[in-house]
């Protein structure tokens, strides 16, 4: 390795898929680094690209932005919507907020958990669905609401949820 290798020690001892992921992360971080307040946009780009923000992203992003690992880690863990484990093929977000409660979302939540056989922040064993709570999708005139990936659905009954998950 040349002495001016910019990669961290971790990066220099790794397998091929790891290496590709890290290269992706580094490329995203470097291309976003010049904007003001760069950390959140970079983390979003990483999550858009990989589906989550892997642990391995923390030291790379920290180095590119000249922050401490603790700072980057602190930000990743502060925000509910950054995830640090790979999601299922699709993510079901069930709205837990008040307007949806008034139209039966508590029952819908129960149904979602039973139907998928998992709790919040978990992924089904077959890797098809992750389940996440969410606090308002702005669809509160047609509650209860859920979102699957980026598609929002309104007036969702347990039966309708079954159809959506089939």
């Amino acid at each position: 390795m040349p002495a001016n290798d910019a990669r961290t020690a971790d990066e220099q001892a790794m397998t091929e898929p790891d290496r590709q992921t890290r290269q992706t992360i580094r490329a995203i971080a470097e291309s976003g680094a010049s904007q003001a307040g760069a950390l959140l946009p970079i983390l979003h780009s990483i999550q858009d690209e990989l589906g989550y923000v892997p642990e391995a992203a923390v030291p790379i992003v920290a180095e590119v932005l000249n922050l401490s690992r603790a700072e980057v880690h602190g930000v990743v863990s502060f925000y509910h919507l950054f995830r640090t484990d790979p999601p299922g093929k699709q993510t079901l977000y069930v709205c837990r907020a008040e307007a949806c409660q008034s139209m039966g979302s508590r029952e819908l939540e129960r149904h979602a958990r039973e139907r998928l056989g998992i709790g919040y922040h978990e992924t089904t064993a077959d890797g098809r669905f992750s389940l996440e709570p969410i606090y308002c999708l702005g669809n509160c005139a047609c509650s209860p609401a859920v979102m699957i990936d980026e598609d929002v659905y309104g007036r969702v009954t347990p039966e309708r949820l079954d159809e959506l998950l089939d």
Partner: protein
Amino acid sequence: MTDGTRVFVPADTTALSLGADAVAATLRREAAERGDAIELVRNGSRGLYWLEPLVEVEVGGQRLAYGPVTANDVASLLDAGLLGGADHALALGPTESIPWLAGQSRLTFARVGVTDPLSIDEYRAHDGFRGLEKAASMTPEEIVAEVTESGLRGRGGAAFPTGIKWNTVLQTDAGQKYIACNADEGDSGTFADRMIMESDPFVLIEGMAIAGLATGATMGYIYIRAEYPLAIRVMREAIERAEAAGLLGGNVLDSGRDFRMEVREAAGAYICGEETSMLESLEGKRGMIRFRPPLPAVKGLFGAPTVVNNVISLATVPIILDKGAEYYRDYGSGRSRGTLTVQLAGNIKRGGLVEIGFGRPLRELLYDFGGGSATGRPIRAVQAGGPLAAYVHPSQFDTPLDYEEFAAIDAMLGHGGLVVFDDTVDMGEQARFAMEFCAIESCGKCTPCRVGAVRGVEVIDKIRNGENEALNLELLRDLCDTMVSGSLCALGGMAPFPVISVLDHFPEDLGTLAVARRPEENPG
């Protein structure tokens, strides 16, 4: 472009959530099969959400409404003569004459649902950019004075006079200043910001550009909640188009002044709707509350003087500049001037967006506009002003929608959301959720909030289980007092309000009576 009949199928989040895309696709296909020429416009939503998907047809220069339309209805609509405006079981007549809409004063929402959101030409044709054109010919002091005289107060919750805030930024000397638009819209029961961004994004761009001209800020950020992917896409596209058209950039409307904009995506933390937390987040940090002073208007984003305003506040500025302060101020009552964008949500028969002058009684919104509960059962409680605000009891439904009148009953209007509950609601459970939500969303900076909320959930659970009721009820009151007086920001400081309202107005739902009542309330 075709010369066909113009047919409008909304494409905002709520319309889409009810199948508007399937309606649009079916309409296209069925019309083609019949050899009918149509020009399909994907407008925003007019906010008559109980009628979405609401299809409109333009006949003889007038728009006629049909709704709610499902994909299965399309063939029968076309067969009946939809394109000629024929009668049908789903026909609602001229859109503007639907009483629910006709009874409103749509100022901020004048174009919402009417136009194609991303068409600059349509925006212009519907009086767009007139406020900005006026502003470009005025001095910053004159613009600020106009906004101050309109009586506009912040629609994000705190109702602080917008002109006064702008003046502070204008008077603060600095090389760089910012406009930071708060589009975090975290309150359950609110969607007015989303509607503006999805259905009339240029009005927000125009409002922010005016704020820039007024204060000397040259850069604007819109901080949009991540839960609004569509709003984020539409806003980004609209900004690009405005730049391409020379409306943003180095020479705004040939004013010789510079204003640029960018969308920043939030990441699902309610506290980031609080303005100082939002600024931290925009800087790329955890959304921890900042101590004040200094005010953001003096030392805000990246240490520079910053106007922080809600989407609706900023989107209201163009019409104020266009029609004058007096025109706007003439709506409203007392110290609440202009219009309030009420969002009817939850268990309500006719939910959606109602923009009306301040001062109308809550009851009118719930029953005349809203038509009562969706389930047809009596309305038992209304949470007005978001998750940190009181549950309003039916005995208070005559209170006028006015900031001071609501404060007088220990309630608030906040961002204008009204979340309706029928008589099957368990208010003890709602009180518990208020504390749970605070515990989930606390930024952790101060103890009364971070620890208090967790304790609050525990104490409410004990009360709900009938343990040591008298003692725990007293403990809950004390805990609420501690949080209200000892928290650094309004999350911990206000989360007890819904709890206190339950203790005061719905005591039968917390304690022995509730424990005795609950089993029979939930048969099966």
